[in-house]
Protein backbone atom coordinates (compact mmCIF):
# COMPACT_ATOMS: atom_id res chain seq x y z
CA UNK A 1 0.00 0.00 0.00
CA UNK A 2 1.44 3.36 -0.96
CA UNK A 3 1.86 6.27 1.41
CA UNK A 4 -0.74 8.22 -0.47
CA UNK A 5 -3.30 5.45 -0.07
CA UNK A 6 -2.58 5.13 3.65
CA UNK A 7 -2.96 8.85 4.07
CA UNK A 8 -6.19 9.02 2.13
CA UNK A 9 -7.61 6.24 4.28
CA UNK A 10 -6.59 8.07 7.39
CA UNK A 11 -8.25 11.22 6.08
CA UNK A 12 -11.28 9.27 4.87
CA UNK A 13 -11.24 11.03 1.53
CA UNK A 14 -14.17 10.30 -0.71
CA UNK A 15 -13.34 8.68 -4.00
CA UNK A 16 -13.90 11.24 -6.76
CA UNK A 17 -17.04 10.49 -8.72
CA UNK A 18 -16.24 9.45 -12.27
CA UNK A 19 -16.95 11.38 -15.46
CA UNK A 20 -19.99 9.30 -16.37
CA UNK A 21 -21.90 9.23 -13.06
CA UNK A 22 -21.42 12.96 -12.78
CA UNK A 23 -22.45 13.57 -16.38
CA UNK A 24 -25.57 11.49 -15.81
CA UNK A 25 -26.39 13.47 -12.69
CA UNK A 26 -26.08 16.75 -14.59
CA UNK A 27 -28.03 15.41 -17.53
CA UNK A 28 -30.98 14.54 -15.29
CA UNK A 29 -31.17 18.14 -14.12
CA UNK A 30 -31.26 19.56 -17.65
CA UNK A 31 -34.91 20.17 -18.61
CA UNK A 32 -34.07 20.30 -22.33
CA UNK A 33 -32.44 16.89 -22.21
CA UNK A 34 -35.42 15.45 -20.31
CA UNK A 35 -37.78 16.69 -23.01
CA UNK A 36 -35.42 15.19 -25.60
CA UNK A 37 -35.40 11.83 -23.84
CA UNK A 38 -39.19 11.87 -23.57
CA UNK A 39 -39.59 12.60 -27.29
CA UNK A 40 -37.13 9.91 -28.35
CA UNK A 41 -38.64 7.42 -25.93
CA UNK A 42 -42.12 8.12 -27.29
CA UNK A 43 -40.98 7.49 -30.87
CA UNK A 44 -39.00 4.41 -29.83
CA UNK A 45 -42.09 2.97 -28.11
CA UNK A 46 -44.24 3.80 -31.12
CA UNK A 47 -41.72 2.02 -33.33
CA UNK A 48 -41.44 -1.02 -31.07
CA UNK A 49 -45.16 -1.51 -30.53
CA UNK A 50 -46.44 -0.13 -33.83
CA UNK A 51 -48.69 -3.13 -34.63
CA UNK A 52 -50.34 -2.83 -31.21
CA UNK A 53 -50.78 0.97 -31.15
CA UNK A 54 -51.72 1.70 -34.74
CA UNK A 55 -55.53 1.62 -35.12
CA UNK A 56 -55.42 0.51 -38.78
CA UNK A 57 -53.20 -1.31 -41.24
CA UNK A 58 -50.80 1.32 -42.67
CA UNK A 59 -50.94 -0.25 -46.12
CA UNK A 60 -54.68 -0.93 -46.39
CA UNK A 61 -56.30 1.72 -48.56
CA UNK A 62 -59.31 2.78 -50.58
CA UNK A 63 -59.85 -0.71 -51.95
CA UNK A 64 -61.70 -1.48 -48.74
CA UNK A 65 -64.38 1.03 -49.68
CA UNK A 66 -62.92 3.89 -47.66
CA UNK A 67 -62.82 7.43 -49.00
CA UNK A 68 -59.57 8.95 -50.19
CA UNK A 69 -57.93 12.12 -48.86
CA UNK A 70 -60.38 12.67 -46.00
CA UNK A 71 -59.69 15.40 -43.46
CA UNK A 72 -58.96 14.43 -39.87
CA UNK A 73 -61.99 13.00 -38.07
CA UNK A 74 -62.81 10.96 -34.95
CA UNK A 75 -62.16 7.67 -36.70
CA UNK A 76 -59.00 8.91 -38.38
CA UNK A 77 -57.48 11.69 -36.22
CA UNK A 78 -54.74 12.43 -38.79
CA UNK A 79 -57.01 11.92 -41.79
CA UNK A 80 -56.70 9.60 -44.76
CA UNK A 81 -54.04 9.93 -47.46
CA UNK A 82 -54.51 10.10 -51.22
CA UNK A 83 -54.83 6.29 -51.31
CA UNK A 84 -57.32 6.19 -48.44
CA UNK A 85 -54.81 4.89 -45.87
CA UNK A 86 -55.00 5.91 -42.23
CA UNK A 87 -52.32 8.60 -41.66
CA UNK A 88 -52.01 8.02 -37.92
CA UNK A 89 -51.12 4.38 -38.47
CA UNK A 90 -48.70 5.34 -41.22
CA UNK A 91 -46.93 7.88 -39.03
CA UNK A 92 -46.65 5.32 -36.21
CA UNK A 93 -45.20 2.68 -38.53
CA UNK A 94 -43.01 5.37 -40.07
CA UNK A 95 -41.21 5.73 -36.74
CA UNK A 96 -39.83 2.24 -37.34
CA UNK A 97 -38.29 3.21 -40.64
CA UNK A 98 -36.94 6.58 -39.61
CA UNK A 99 -35.40 5.46 -36.31
CA UNK A 100 -34.00 2.26 -37.81
CA UNK A 101 -32.54 4.06 -40.81
CA UNK A 102 -31.08 6.74 -38.56
CA UNK A 103 -29.50 4.29 -36.14
CA UNK A 104 -28.15 1.97 -38.83
CA UNK A 105 -26.66 4.75 -40.95
CA UNK A 106 -25.02 6.44 -37.98
CA UNK A 107 -23.66 3.08 -36.79
CA UNK A 108 -22.19 2.43 -40.23
CA UNK A 109 -20.57 5.87 -40.33
CA UNK A 110 -19.46 5.71 -36.73
CA UNK A 111 -17.78 2.32 -36.91
CA UNK A 112 -15.86 2.98 -40.12
CA UNK A 113 -15.08 6.52 -39.00
CA UNK A 114 -13.80 5.38 -35.62
CA UNK A 115 -11.56 2.70 -37.07
CA UNK A 116 -10.08 5.09 -39.63
CA UNK A 117 -9.77 7.99 -37.18
CA UNK A 118 -8.32 5.76 -34.48
CA UNK A 119 -5.68 4.31 -36.80
CA UNK A 120 -4.80 7.74 -38.20
CA UNK A 121 -4.62 9.41 -34.83
CA UNK A 122 -2.65 6.73 -33.04
CA UNK A 123 -0.22 5.70 -35.78
CA UNK A 124 0.35 9.19 -37.17
CA UNK A 125 2.88 9.74 -39.95
CA UNK A 126 2.17 8.65 -43.50
CA UNK A 127 -0.90 6.58 -42.56
CA UNK A 128 -2.40 9.62 -40.89
CA UNK A 129 -1.73 11.78 -43.95
CA UNK A 130 -3.24 9.33 -46.41
CA UNK A 131 -6.36 8.61 -44.35
CA UNK A 132 -7.02 12.24 -43.52
CA UNK A 133 -6.53 13.46 -47.13
CA UNK A 134 -9.07 10.84 -48.17
CA UNK A 135 -11.47 12.15 -45.52
CA UNK A 136 -10.85 15.71 -46.75
CA UNK A 137 -11.84 14.65 -50.25
CA UNK A 138 -15.06 13.10 -48.94
CA UNK A 139 -15.82 16.20 -46.91
CA UNK A 140 -15.31 18.39 -49.96
CA UNK A 141 -18.59 17.15 -51.39
CA UNK A 142 -21.57 18.65 -49.54
CA UNK A 143 -23.23 15.87 -47.47
CA UNK A 144 -26.53 15.48 -49.27
CA UNK A 145 -24.87 15.58 -52.70
CA UNK A 146 -22.43 12.86 -51.67
CA UNK A 147 -25.40 10.79 -50.52
CA UNK A 148 -27.19 11.48 -53.81
CA UNK A 149 -24.11 10.36 -55.71
CA UNK A 150 -23.95 7.13 -53.74
CA UNK A 151 -27.65 6.46 -54.23
CA UNK A 152 -27.31 7.17 -57.95
CA UNK A 153 -24.61 4.52 -58.07
CA UNK A 154 -26.30 1.92 -55.88
CA UNK A 155 -29.81 2.60 -57.10
CA UNK A 156 -32.63 3.96 -54.93
CA UNK A 157 -33.97 1.99 -51.97
CA UNK A 158 -34.10 1.70 -48.22
CA UNK A 159 -30.82 -0.17 -47.73
CA UNK A 160 -29.13 2.09 -50.23
CA UNK A 161 -30.02 5.35 -48.48
CA UNK A 162 -28.79 3.89 -45.18
CA UNK A 163 -25.41 3.16 -46.78
CA UNK A 164 -25.36 6.57 -48.46
CA UNK A 165 -26.05 8.52 -45.28
CA UNK A 166 -23.63 6.26 -43.41
CA UNK A 167 -20.85 7.09 -45.87
CA UNK A 168 -21.40 10.83 -45.41
CA UNK A 169 -20.86 10.29 -41.68
CA UNK A 170 -17.55 8.42 -41.99
CA UNK A 171 -15.23 11.43 -42.45
CA UNK A 172 -16.97 13.41 -39.70
CA UNK A 173 -16.33 10.73 -37.07
CA UNK A 174 -12.85 9.92 -38.36
CA UNK A 175 -11.79 13.56 -38.04
CA UNK A 176 -13.36 13.92 -34.63
CA UNK A 177 -11.77 10.84 -33.07
CA UNK A 178 -8.39 11.59 -34.61
CA UNK A 179 -8.39 15.11 -33.20
CA UNK A 180 -9.55 13.86 -29.84
CA UNK A 181 -6.85 11.15 -29.71
CA UNK A 182 -4.13 13.61 -30.71
CA UNK A 183 -5.20 15.86 -27.86
CA UNK A 184 -5.19 12.96 -25.37
CA UNK A 185 -1.86 11.56 -26.56
CA UNK A 186 0.07 14.44 -25.02
CA UNK A 187 -1.69 14.25 -21.67
CA UNK A 188 0.42 13.66 -18.56
CA UNK A 189 -1.30 10.40 -17.66
CA UNK A 190 -0.56 8.98 -21.10
CA UNK A 191 3.07 10.04 -20.91
CA UNK A 192 3.24 8.52 -17.42
CA UNK A 193 1.79 5.22 -18.64
CA UNK A 194 4.31 5.14 -21.47
CA UNK A 195 7.13 5.94 -19.07
CA UNK A 196 6.32 2.94 -16.87
CA UNK A 197 6.20 0.69 -19.92
CA UNK A 198 2.49 0.03 -20.47
CA UNK A 199 2.05 -1.62 -23.90
CA UNK A 200 0.79 0.62 -26.74
CA UNK A 201 -2.41 -1.28 -27.25
CA UNK A 202 -3.32 -1.06 -23.56
CA UNK A 203 -2.58 2.66 -23.55
CA UNK A 204 -4.89 3.18 -26.53
CA UNK A 205 -7.65 0.98 -25.15
CA UNK A 206 -7.69 1.92 -21.50
CA UNK A 207 -6.12 5.38 -21.30
CA UNK A 208 -6.77 7.23 -24.54
CA UNK A 209 -10.07 5.92 -25.92
CA UNK A 210 -12.20 6.30 -22.77
CA UNK A 211 -11.12 9.92 -22.55
CA UNK A 212 -11.40 10.61 -26.28
CA UNK A 213 -14.82 9.06 -26.70
CA UNK A 214 -17.08 11.67 -25.11
CA UNK A 215 -17.09 14.11 -28.05
CA UNK A 216 -17.84 11.11 -30.26
CA UNK A 217 -20.91 10.27 -28.19
CA UNK A 218 -22.17 13.83 -28.41
CA UNK A 219 -21.55 13.91 -32.16
CA UNK A 220 -23.20 10.50 -32.51
CA UNK A 221 -26.42 11.78 -30.95
CA UNK A 222 -26.43 14.91 -33.10
CA UNK A 223 -25.60 12.77 -36.16
CA UNK A 224 -28.76 10.75 -35.51
CA UNK A 225 -30.74 13.98 -35.85
CA UNK A 226 -28.99 14.89 -39.11
CA UNK A 227 -29.32 11.34 -40.42
CA UNK A 228 -33.10 11.40 -39.93
CA UNK A 229 -33.27 14.72 -41.80
CA UNK A 230 -31.01 13.49 -44.62
CA UNK A 231 -32.86 10.21 -45.00
CA UNK A 232 -36.18 12.05 -45.09
CA UNK A 233 -34.66 14.41 -47.68
CA UNK A 234 -33.58 11.52 -49.89
CA UNK A 235 -36.99 9.93 -49.43
CA UNK A 236 -38.62 13.23 -50.38
CA UNK A 237 -36.55 13.34 -53.57
CA UNK A 238 -37.93 9.90 -54.41
CA UNK A 239 -34.66 8.07 -53.77
CA UNK A 240 -35.95 6.12 -50.77
CA UNK A 241 -38.01 2.94 -50.67
CA UNK A 242 -39.25 2.34 -54.19
CA UNK A 243 -42.63 1.04 -53.09
CA UNK A 244 -44.53 4.30 -52.56
CA UNK A 245 -46.75 2.50 -50.04
CA UNK A 246 -43.83 2.28 -47.57
CA UNK A 247 -44.74 4.54 -44.66
CA UNK A 248 -41.34 6.30 -44.49
CA UNK A 249 -41.84 9.90 -43.36
CA UNK A 250 -39.78 11.55 -46.09
CA UNK A 251 -41.38 9.43 -48.80
CA UNK A 252 -44.82 10.28 -47.39
CA UNK A 253 -44.03 13.95 -48.07
CA UNK A 254 -42.99 13.41 -51.70
CA UNK A 255 -46.23 13.97 -53.55
CA UNK A 256 -47.97 16.09 -50.98
CA UNK A 257 -46.96 19.44 -52.49
CA UNK A 258 -49.51 18.69 -55.22
CA UNK A 259 -52.29 18.38 -52.64
CA UNK A 260 -51.43 21.47 -50.55
CA UNK A 261 -54.57 23.26 -51.65
CA UNK A 262 -56.96 20.47 -50.71
CA UNK A 263 -55.17 18.36 -48.10
CA UNK A 264 -52.40 20.26 -46.32
CA UNK A 265 -52.47 17.83 -43.36
CA UNK A 266 -50.94 15.17 -45.63
CA UNK A 267 -47.70 17.17 -45.59
CA UNK A 268 -47.93 18.76 -42.15
CA UNK A 269 -48.37 15.59 -40.09
CA UNK A 270 -45.44 13.45 -41.29
CA UNK A 271 -43.37 16.64 -41.33
CA UNK A 272 -44.12 17.30 -37.68
CA UNK A 273 -43.13 13.72 -36.85
CA UNK A 274 -39.74 14.35 -38.47
CA UNK A 275 -39.29 17.67 -36.64
CA UNK A 276 -40.17 16.20 -33.23
CA UNK A 277 -37.88 13.19 -33.52
CA UNK A 278 -35.00 15.33 -34.80
CA UNK A 279 -35.63 17.84 -32.02
CA UNK A 280 -35.49 15.00 -29.48
CA UNK A 281 -32.04 13.87 -30.61
CA UNK A 282 -30.78 17.45 -30.84
CA UNK A 283 -31.92 18.17 -27.27
CA UNK A 284 -30.22 15.03 -25.96
CA UNK A 285 -27.07 15.85 -27.91
CA UNK A 286 -26.93 19.40 -26.54
CA UNK A 287 -27.59 18.13 -23.01
CA UNK A 288 -24.84 15.51 -23.33
CA UNK A 289 -22.39 18.10 -24.63
CA UNK A 290 -22.98 20.30 -21.61
CA UNK A 291 -22.92 17.35 -19.20
CA UNK A 292 -19.67 15.95 -20.59
CA UNK A 293 -17.85 19.26 -20.92
CA UNK A 294 -14.86 18.93 -18.55
CA UNK A 295 -14.83 22.71 -18.09
CA UNK A 296 -18.24 22.49 -16.44
CA UNK A 297 -17.42 19.48 -14.26
CA UNK A 298 -17.97 19.84 -10.56
CA UNK A 299 -20.63 22.51 -11.07
CA UNK A 300 -24.28 21.88 -10.45
Amino acid at each position, binding site marked *: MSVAEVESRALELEAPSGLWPEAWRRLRRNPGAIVGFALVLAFALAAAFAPLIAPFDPLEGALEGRRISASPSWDHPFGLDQQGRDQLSRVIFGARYSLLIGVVSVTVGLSFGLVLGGIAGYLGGIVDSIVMRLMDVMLS*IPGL*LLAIGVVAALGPGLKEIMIAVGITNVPIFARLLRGSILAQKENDFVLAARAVGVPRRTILASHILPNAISPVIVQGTLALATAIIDVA*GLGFLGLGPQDPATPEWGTMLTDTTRFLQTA*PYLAIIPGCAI*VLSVLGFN*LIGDGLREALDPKLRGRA
Partner: protein
Amino acid sequence: MLRFVVRRLLLLVPILLGLSLLVFGWIRWLPGSPAIALLGERATPETVAQIERQYGLDRPIHVQYWRYLNNVARADFGDSIVTRRSVVTELREKFPATIELALAAMFVSVLLGIPLGFIAAKRYGGPLDHASLVASLLGISIPVFFLAIVLKYVFAVKLGWLPTVGRLSPLIPAEHPTKFYVLDAIVTGNGRAFLNSLKHLVLPAIALGSIPLAVIARITRAAVLDVMNEDYVRTARAKGIHPLLVDSRHVLRNALLPISTIIGLQTGLLLSGAVLTETVFAWPGLGTWLVGAIENRDYPVLQGGILFVAVVFVLVNLLVDISYAFINPRIRVS
Protein backbone atom coordinates in the same frame (compact mmCIF):
# COMPACT_ATOMS: atom_id res chain seq x y z
CA MET B 1 0.74 35.98 -45.50
CA LEU B 2 1.86 35.05 -49.00
CA ARG B 3 3.41 31.84 -47.66
CA PHE B 4 0.12 30.97 -45.99
CA VAL B 5 -1.83 31.49 -49.20
CA VAL B 6 0.68 29.48 -51.25
CA ARG B 7 0.60 26.63 -48.74
CA ARG B 8 -3.21 26.54 -48.77
CA LEU B 9 -3.19 26.56 -52.58
CA LEU B 10 -0.74 23.66 -52.64
CA LEU B 11 -2.97 21.70 -50.25
CA LEU B 12 -5.71 22.16 -52.83
CA VAL B 13 -3.89 19.98 -55.39
CA PRO B 14 -4.27 16.59 -53.62
CA ILE B 15 -7.89 17.41 -52.74
CA LEU B 16 -8.81 18.23 -56.33
CA LEU B 17 -6.94 15.19 -57.67
CA GLY B 18 -8.67 13.00 -55.08
CA LEU B 19 -12.02 14.46 -56.05
CA SER B 20 -11.46 13.81 -59.74
CA LEU B 21 -10.41 10.24 -58.92
CA LEU B 22 -13.50 9.75 -56.77
CA VAL B 23 -15.89 11.06 -59.42
CA PHE B 24 -14.04 9.14 -62.15
CA GLY B 25 -14.14 5.93 -60.13
CA TRP B 26 -17.78 6.49 -59.25
CA ILE B 27 -19.04 6.24 -62.82
CA ARG B 28 -17.09 2.98 -63.22
CA TRP B 29 -18.53 1.65 -59.98
CA LEU B 30 -22.05 1.82 -61.44
CA PRO B 31 -23.79 -1.46 -62.10
CA GLY B 32 -22.90 -2.56 -65.63
CA SER B 33 -20.51 -0.73 -67.88
CA PRO B 34 -20.72 3.05 -68.34
CA ALA B 35 -21.60 2.38 -71.95
CA ILE B 36 -24.74 0.57 -70.86
CA ALA B 37 -25.48 3.41 -68.48
CA LEU B 38 -25.05 5.87 -71.36
CA LEU B 39 -27.20 3.91 -73.77
CA GLY B 40 -29.89 2.79 -71.39
CA GLU B 41 -32.57 0.80 -73.20
CA ARG B 42 -30.91 1.17 -76.57
CA ALA B 43 -27.97 -1.00 -75.48
CA THR B 44 -27.12 -3.83 -77.89
CA PRO B 45 -23.72 -5.56 -78.01
CA GLU B 46 -22.86 -3.58 -81.16
CA THR B 47 -23.83 -0.16 -79.83
CA VAL B 48 -22.05 -0.90 -76.55
CA ALA B 49 -18.85 -1.78 -78.41
CA GLN B 50 -19.21 1.34 -80.54
CA ILE B 51 -19.71 3.61 -77.52
CA GLU B 52 -16.79 1.97 -75.72
CA ARG B 53 -14.55 2.70 -78.69
CA GLN B 54 -15.90 6.21 -79.10
CA TYR B 55 -15.29 7.11 -75.43
CA GLY B 56 -12.05 5.12 -75.16
CA LEU B 57 -13.56 2.77 -72.60
CA ASP B 58 -11.69 -0.18 -74.12
CA ARG B 59 -8.34 1.41 -73.20
CA PRO B 60 -6.45 0.67 -69.96
CA ILE B 61 -7.89 2.37 -66.88
CA HIS B 62 -4.98 4.79 -66.30
CA VAL B 63 -5.20 5.96 -69.91
CA GLN B 64 -8.91 6.58 -69.38
CA TYR B 65 -8.27 8.54 -66.22
CA TRP B 66 -5.63 10.67 -67.90
CA ARG B 67 -8.07 11.39 -70.73
CA TYR B 68 -10.77 12.26 -68.22
CA LEU B 69 -8.44 14.64 -66.37
CA ASN B 70 -7.53 16.34 -69.63
CA ASN B 71 -11.18 16.79 -70.53
CA VAL B 72 -12.09 18.15 -67.12
CA ALA B 73 -9.15 20.54 -67.21
CA ARG B 74 -10.54 21.92 -70.46
CA ALA B 75 -13.96 22.22 -68.77
CA ASP B 76 -15.37 19.44 -70.94
CA PHE B 77 -17.79 17.30 -68.94
CA GLY B 78 -19.31 15.57 -71.95
CA ASP B 79 -22.93 15.79 -73.15
CA SER B 80 -26.18 15.18 -71.35
CA ILE B 81 -27.79 11.91 -72.37
CA VAL B 82 -31.28 13.40 -72.27
CA THR B 83 -30.89 16.78 -73.94
CA ARG B 84 -27.76 15.95 -75.98
CA ARG B 85 -26.39 19.38 -75.01
CA SER B 86 -23.01 19.87 -73.42
CA VAL B 87 -23.05 19.60 -69.64
CA VAL B 88 -21.10 22.86 -69.35
CA THR B 89 -23.72 24.77 -71.35
CA GLU B 90 -26.48 23.49 -69.08
CA LEU B 91 -24.37 24.24 -66.02
CA ARG B 92 -24.01 27.85 -67.17
CA GLU B 93 -27.78 28.16 -67.35
CA LYS B 94 -28.56 26.50 -64.02
CA PHE B 95 -25.76 27.72 -61.81
CA PRO B 96 -26.75 31.44 -61.67
CA ALA B 97 -30.22 30.46 -60.42
CA THR B 98 -28.73 28.51 -57.52
CA ILE B 99 -26.20 31.24 -56.72
CA GLU B 100 -28.97 33.83 -56.70
CA LEU B 101 -31.01 31.69 -54.33
CA ALA B 102 -28.02 30.89 -52.08
CA LEU B 103 -26.98 34.54 -51.87
CA ALA B 104 -30.51 35.59 -50.99
CA ALA B 105 -30.67 32.88 -48.32
CA MET B 106 -27.33 34.00 -46.91
CA PHE B 107 -28.56 37.60 -46.90
CA VAL B 108 -31.66 36.60 -44.90
CA SER B 109 -29.68 34.52 -42.40
CA VAL B 110 -26.96 37.11 -41.76
CA LEU B 111 -29.38 40.01 -41.61
CA LEU B 112 -31.54 38.28 -39.01
CA GLY B 113 -29.06 35.91 -37.37
CA ILE B 114 -26.47 38.41 -36.14
CA PRO B 115 -28.92 40.84 -34.48
CA LEU B 116 -30.85 37.92 -32.99
CA GLY B 117 -27.74 36.38 -31.47
CA PHE B 118 -26.49 39.76 -30.29
CA ILE B 119 -29.75 40.64 -28.52
CA ALA B 120 -29.89 37.17 -26.94
CA ALA B 121 -26.38 37.63 -25.54
CA LYS B 122 -27.19 41.12 -24.24
CA ARG B 123 -30.26 39.74 -22.48
CA TYR B 124 -28.37 36.65 -21.27
CA GLY B 125 -30.57 34.34 -19.18
CA GLY B 126 -33.69 36.40 -19.81
CA PRO B 127 -36.85 35.36 -21.65
CA LEU B 128 -35.58 36.80 -24.94
CA ASP B 129 -32.42 34.71 -24.64
CA HIS B 130 -34.41 31.56 -23.95
CA ALA B 131 -36.78 32.30 -26.81
CA SER B 132 -33.89 32.71 -29.23
CA LEU B 133 -32.31 29.46 -28.03
CA VAL B 134 -35.55 27.57 -28.56
CA ALA B 135 -36.04 29.20 -31.95
CA SER B 136 -32.55 28.31 -33.12
CA LEU B 137 -32.95 24.75 -31.90
CA LEU B 138 -36.19 24.48 -33.86
CA GLY B 139 -34.44 26.06 -36.83
CA ILE B 140 -31.87 23.27 -37.04
CA SER B 141 -34.47 20.58 -36.38
CA ILE B 142 -36.83 21.45 -39.22
CA PRO B 143 -35.87 19.80 -42.51
CA VAL B 144 -35.42 22.46 -45.19
CA PHE B 145 -37.92 20.85 -47.53
CA PHE B 146 -40.60 20.64 -44.84
CA LEU B 147 -40.19 24.31 -43.93
CA ALA B 148 -40.37 25.08 -47.64
CA ILE B 149 -43.63 23.16 -47.92
CA VAL B 150 -45.13 24.91 -44.87
CA LEU B 151 -44.09 28.37 -46.11
CA LYS B 152 -45.49 27.60 -49.52
CA TYR B 153 -48.76 26.44 -48.00
CA VAL B 154 -49.21 29.47 -45.73
CA PHE B 155 -47.93 32.35 -47.84
CA ALA B 156 -48.50 31.12 -51.37
CA VAL B 157 -51.46 28.75 -51.27
CA LYS B 158 -53.54 30.07 -48.33
CA LEU B 159 -52.76 33.78 -48.28
CA GLY B 160 -51.76 34.07 -51.91
CA TRP B 161 -49.23 36.80 -51.17
CA LEU B 162 -46.33 35.24 -52.99
CA PRO B 163 -45.90 32.98 -56.03
CA THR B 164 -45.70 29.21 -55.56
CA VAL B 165 -43.14 28.15 -58.17
CA GLY B 166 -40.44 29.40 -60.51
CA ARG B 167 -38.20 32.47 -60.74
CA LEU B 168 -40.27 34.87 -62.79
CA SER B 169 -43.84 35.02 -64.01
CA PRO B 170 -43.95 33.89 -67.65
CA LEU B 171 -46.33 36.77 -68.38
CA ILE B 172 -43.62 39.35 -67.79
CA PRO B 173 -41.33 39.95 -70.74
CA ALA B 174 -37.70 40.16 -69.65
CA GLU B 175 -34.21 39.76 -71.05
CA HIS B 176 -31.56 37.73 -69.27
CA PRO B 177 -28.05 38.85 -70.14
CA THR B 178 -26.50 37.60 -66.86
CA LYS B 179 -29.02 34.85 -65.94
CA PHE B 180 -29.26 36.37 -62.46
CA TYR B 181 -32.87 37.48 -62.80
CA VAL B 182 -32.84 40.21 -60.16
CA LEU B 183 -29.61 41.63 -61.54
CA ASP B 184 -30.94 41.29 -65.10
CA ALA B 185 -33.98 43.35 -64.21
CA ILE B 186 -31.77 46.08 -62.75
CA VAL B 187 -29.38 46.07 -65.71
CA THR B 188 -32.18 46.25 -68.25
CA GLY B 189 -34.15 48.73 -66.14
CA ASN B 190 -37.18 46.47 -66.03
CA GLY B 191 -39.12 47.49 -62.91
CA ARG B 192 -41.88 44.89 -63.18
CA ALA B 193 -39.44 42.03 -63.67
CA PHE B 194 -37.41 43.29 -60.73
CA LEU B 195 -40.34 43.24 -58.32
CA ASN B 196 -41.65 39.97 -59.65
CA SER B 197 -38.33 38.12 -59.44
CA LEU B 198 -37.80 39.46 -55.92
CA LYS B 199 -41.24 38.14 -54.92
CA HIS B 200 -40.31 34.73 -56.31
CA LEU B 201 -37.12 34.76 -54.25
CA VAL B 202 -38.65 35.50 -50.84
CA LEU B 203 -40.02 32.10 -49.79
CA PRO B 204 -37.20 29.89 -51.15
CA ALA B 205 -34.64 32.22 -49.57
CA ILE B 206 -36.31 32.08 -46.14
CA ALA B 207 -36.64 28.29 -46.30
CA LEU B 208 -33.05 27.77 -47.39
CA GLY B 209 -31.76 30.41 -44.99
CA SER B 210 -33.40 28.89 -41.92
CA ILE B 211 -30.56 26.56 -40.89
CA PRO B 212 -27.73 29.06 -41.44
CA LEU B 213 -29.89 31.60 -39.62
CA ALA B 214 -30.17 29.34 -36.57
CA VAL B 215 -26.47 28.49 -36.63
CA ILE B 216 -25.37 32.10 -37.07
CA ALA B 217 -27.63 33.25 -34.22
CA ARG B 218 -26.18 30.56 -31.93
CA ILE B 219 -22.56 31.35 -32.77
CA THR B 220 -23.13 35.12 -32.51
CA ARG B 221 -24.64 34.66 -29.08
CA ALA B 222 -21.70 32.56 -27.89
CA ALA B 223 -19.11 34.87 -29.43
CA VAL B 224 -20.67 38.03 -28.00
CA LEU B 225 -20.91 36.41 -24.56
CA ASP B 226 -17.19 35.55 -24.76
CA VAL B 227 -16.12 39.04 -25.81
CA MET B 228 -18.44 40.87 -23.41
CA ASN B 229 -16.45 39.64 -20.42
CA GLU B 230 -13.06 40.66 -21.82
CA ASP B 231 -10.96 43.17 -19.89
CA TYR B 232 -10.79 45.62 -22.76
CA VAL B 233 -14.57 45.83 -22.90
CA ARG B 234 -14.72 46.59 -19.18
CA THR B 235 -11.96 49.16 -19.61
CA ALA B 236 -13.83 50.80 -22.46
CA ARG B 237 -17.00 51.00 -20.38
CA ALA B 238 -15.04 52.31 -17.38
CA LYS B 239 -13.59 55.06 -19.55
CA GLY B 240 -17.15 56.21 -20.13
CA ILE B 241 -17.35 55.44 -23.83
CA HIS B 242 -20.94 55.48 -25.03
CA PRO B 243 -22.45 51.97 -24.59
CA LEU B 244 -23.53 51.80 -28.23
CA LEU B 245 -19.99 52.59 -29.31
CA VAL B 246 -18.56 49.90 -27.02
CA ASP B 247 -21.05 47.41 -28.44
CA SER B 248 -20.24 48.17 -32.03
CA ARG B 249 -16.49 48.84 -31.88
CA HIS B 250 -15.28 46.56 -29.12
CA VAL B 251 -17.80 43.78 -28.77
CA LEU B 252 -19.30 43.15 -32.18
CA ARG B 253 -16.12 43.74 -34.16
CA ASN B 254 -14.23 41.10 -32.19
CA ALA B 255 -17.15 38.72 -32.13
CA LEU B 256 -17.31 38.87 -35.94
CA LEU B 257 -14.22 36.64 -36.22
CA PRO B 258 -15.87 33.32 -35.32
CA ILE B 259 -19.08 34.45 -37.02
CA SER B 260 -17.34 35.02 -40.35
CA THR B 261 -15.86 31.51 -40.33
CA ILE B 262 -19.24 29.98 -39.64
CA ILE B 263 -20.82 31.92 -42.47
CA GLY B 264 -18.27 30.41 -44.84
CA LEU B 265 -18.80 26.92 -43.51
CA GLN B 266 -22.53 27.17 -44.23
CA THR B 267 -21.95 27.12 -48.00
CA GLY B 268 -21.97 23.33 -48.08
CA LEU B 269 -25.26 23.25 -46.22
CA LEU B 270 -26.68 25.87 -48.57
CA LEU B 271 -25.70 23.86 -51.63
CA SER B 272 -27.20 20.68 -50.13
CA GLY B 273 -30.32 22.49 -48.99
CA ALA B 274 -30.70 24.14 -52.38
CA VAL B 275 -31.34 20.72 -53.95
CA LEU B 276 -34.37 20.24 -51.70
CA THR B 277 -35.63 23.84 -51.69
CA GLU B 278 -35.45 24.02 -55.47
CA THR B 279 -37.49 20.83 -55.73
CA VAL B 280 -40.31 22.26 -53.61
CA PHE B 281 -40.44 25.59 -55.46
CA ALA B 282 -39.61 24.20 -58.93
CA TRP B 283 -36.66 26.59 -58.98
CA PRO B 284 -34.74 25.93 -62.22
CA GLY B 285 -31.28 25.63 -60.63
CA LEU B 286 -28.58 23.03 -60.05
CA GLY B 287 -30.77 21.14 -57.56
CA THR B 288 -33.72 20.40 -59.82
CA TRP B 289 -31.25 19.73 -62.62
CA LEU B 290 -29.37 17.10 -60.60
CA VAL B 291 -32.54 15.48 -59.26
CA GLY B 292 -33.85 15.27 -62.81
CA ALA B 293 -30.55 13.70 -63.83
CA ILE B 294 -30.97 10.96 -61.23
CA GLU B 295 -34.45 10.17 -62.45
CA ASN B 296 -33.22 9.99 -66.04
CA ARG B 297 -29.98 8.20 -65.13
CA ASP B 298 -28.16 11.04 -66.87
CA TYR B 299 -24.69 10.13 -65.62
CA PRO B 300 -22.61 12.74 -67.45
CA VAL B 301 -24.78 15.45 -65.86
CA LEU B 302 -24.46 13.89 -62.40
CA GLN B 303 -20.72 13.41 -62.76
CA GLY B 304 -20.09 16.93 -64.03
CA GLY B 305 -22.58 18.55 -61.68
CA ILE B 306 -21.31 16.90 -58.51
CA LEU B 307 -17.66 17.55 -59.41
CA PHE B 308 -18.50 21.18 -60.15
CA VAL B 309 -20.37 21.72 -56.88
CA ALA B 310 -17.56 20.06 -54.91
CA VAL B 311 -14.95 22.30 -56.57
CA VAL B 312 -17.04 25.38 -55.80
CA PHE B 313 -17.37 24.22 -52.19
CA VAL B 314 -13.60 23.65 -51.88
CA LEU B 315 -12.83 27.08 -53.37
CA VAL B 316 -15.27 28.85 -51.07
CA ASN B 317 -13.68 27.16 -48.07
CA LEU B 318 -10.26 28.24 -49.32
CA LEU B 319 -11.47 31.84 -49.62
CA VAL B 320 -12.91 31.66 -46.10
CA ASP B 321 -9.59 30.36 -44.73
CA ILE B 322 -7.61 33.08 -46.47
CA SER B 323 -9.93 35.89 -45.49
CA TYR B 324 -9.89 34.58 -41.94
CA ALA B 325 -6.10 34.78 -41.93
CA PHE B 326 -6.41 38.36 -43.15
CA ILE B 327 -8.65 39.27 -40.24
CA ASN B 328 -6.85 37.23 -37.59
CA PRO B 329 -3.07 37.64 -37.51
CA ARG B 330 -2.63 34.73 -35.09
CA ILE B 331 -3.58 32.21 -37.79
CA ARG B 332 -0.93 33.51 -40.19
CA VAL B 333 1.93 32.78 -37.82
CA SER B 334 1.09 29.21 -36.89
